[in-house]
């Protein structure tokens, strides 16, 4: 699934943007973005606040007119065939846009009717979805009494009422506590793996992008700065850091062995560190070489590059709101 970028113009590309641009007066919010998301993918759109994530989602979901470029959802142009696009997408926007005076059940029915689903079917589907997101008990309560996490889950259920094949989630877990966040991730994974739903999610949380997305695009100041699977992106940052603790008497011989596997990196006293060329797969080789040299290792750790390193490498800054 991840890294399937070769099929940009194949039939399997369901979200496609070419030179997508949006300006607000003088301000350029999104500057010529190219995207290709294939069917069944979970695509993460990662960037700090104000990077242009929501603006891009609003253009892809027909809510905002692009000032340049084109976007197609499952072959339908977002401007020329907006209503066709709206029928096949599910949208859960940032700032859970839910009427607080209505109950969960009422909102589910309303959303279903707007999608042309019959009343009897909407009743079944509504209660089924509410149960799935764990809101069966709160279905008859007004949304005003829901917690932030419950609103997010209702938001997700609402966006699924017409069984969309493509789901847009704008900052799905913003403001959620860790437990609710993990529950939401589980549901997104389930939708993707069981129903094959293509998911386009924006996030400013590195962990979320890392956990959920098969492929990630990093956006900063309205431009895409990196794109690829999390593993590929991390590997572009450089080799992981291998740290080895040894008895001081072995330090020199350990260093001698280790520099054969990559450039030496700064380390505290009594420890030897290198950038391990070839990545984690070579750890066993290193251990064997140390053993052959008669070095006794007391501790060994390998730090993989994080998405934050990727972001820093691409932009020169650390990502705001980074949790990891």
């Amino acid at each position, binding site marked *: 699934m991840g890294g399937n970028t070769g099929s940009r113009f194949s039939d399997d590309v369901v979200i496609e943007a070419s030179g997508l641009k949006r300006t607000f007066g003088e301000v350029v919010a999104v500057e010529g973005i190219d995207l290709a998301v294939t069917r069944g993918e979970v695509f993460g759109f990662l960037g700090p606040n104000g990077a242009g994530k929501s603006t891009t989602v609003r253009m892809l979901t027909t809510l905002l007119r692009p000032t340049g470029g084109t976007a197609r959802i499952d072959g339908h142009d977002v401007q020329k065939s907006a209503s066709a696009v709206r029928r096949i997408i599910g949208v859960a926007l940032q700032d859970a846009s839910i009427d607080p005076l*209505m109950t969960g059940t009422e909102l589910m029915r309303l959303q279903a009717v707007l999608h042309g689903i019959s009343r009897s079917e909407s009743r079944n589907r509504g209660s089924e979805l509410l149960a799935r997101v764990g809101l069966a008990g709160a279905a008859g309560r007004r949304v005003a009494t829901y917690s932030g996490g419950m609103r997010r889950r209702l938001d997700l259920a609402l966006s699924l009422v017409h069984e969309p*094949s493509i789901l847009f989630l704008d900052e799905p877990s913003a403001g959620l506590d860790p437990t609710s966040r993990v529950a939401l991730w589980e549901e997104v994974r389930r939708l993707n793996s069981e129903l094959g739903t293509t998911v386009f999610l924006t996030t400013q949380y590195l962990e979320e992008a890392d956990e959920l997305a098969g492929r990630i695009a990093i956006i900063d100041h309205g431009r895409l700065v990196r794109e690829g699977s999390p593993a590929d992106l991390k590997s572009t940052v450089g080799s992981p850091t291998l740290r080895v603790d040894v008895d001081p008497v072995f330090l020199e011989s350990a260093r001698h062995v280790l520099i054969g596997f990559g450039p030496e990196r700064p380390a505290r006293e009594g420890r030897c560190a290198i950038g391990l060329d070839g990545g984690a797969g070579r750890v066993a080789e290193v251990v064997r070489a140390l053993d052959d040299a008669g070095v006794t290792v007391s501790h060994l750790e390998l730090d993989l590059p994080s998405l934050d390193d990727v972001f820093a490498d691409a932009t020169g800054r650390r990502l705001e709101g980074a949790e990891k």
Partner: protein
Amino acid sequence: MTCLPTQPAAASRGPKSESTTVNAGAATGLRLAGVQTLALTRRSVVSEWRQLGNVIPGIVFPLLLAAVYTHQFTRVILLPGFPVVDSFLDFVLPASLVQSVSFGATEAGTELARDIENGFFDRLRASPCMRLPLLLGRLGGAVVVATAKGVLIIAIFLLFGTKIAGGLAAAVVLVAAAVLLVIAIGGLGQVLAILTGSQEAVNATFPLVFTSIFMSSAFFPTNLMSGWFREVAEANPVTWIIDPVRRLILEGWSWSDVGQALAVPLVISVVTVAMAVIALNRKLSSS
């Protein structure tokens, strides 16, 4: 990184999704618009019901005013030129009715502004909901509430001895005229909601609506007014609605009065709702 398996069940979901699309496709545009309008109307009625506190002053205040005026104006009705009535209560019924429905007439606008402010409008827009039902659904709620208020106000007046010379049919025209007036004011509120996206901006029009009732023939016949006030009252569309409605109550059924009572608010409604549609189309095509 979790590597997610891809769509094993995607194919099995096909038929269900297809039936949904067929349902939507089979319904004609008009039918779908009707269904969507009804669903959104139901929603706005439910919202109104759950904010009943907002509706009650619009019933109590006009009734209170009618009671006070009826008590105070026992001799006013004897003035030469004043319509022949048994009690001021008979005279003031159209005023109370219009006043009652004008409370909350801007609701269709403020509620729309609320939807825009809290982002619910975007949720509706991202669904296949057509544009007209977005507006009509909110007006629908106001219409249902205005009808209920109209029936209630008339019932209370009848209870206190008012007689409607034009009969039941005239009472229906009364409610219909009041409802059309609500659509007219609501349409204007929606224009403001779309242009500003702010509940406060829409609410700010209420004093204007309220004042325009006092500056009409609602509580006093224009033929007994004088000076600029009379000119303003005679040029006020509220007077054009209240006068024929009042004749239906006091004098009896007349097709020309029915025509005027309904045509005036109808024309204004068509204009303001059309303005709201244009404003919405402009906003959506420029955003």
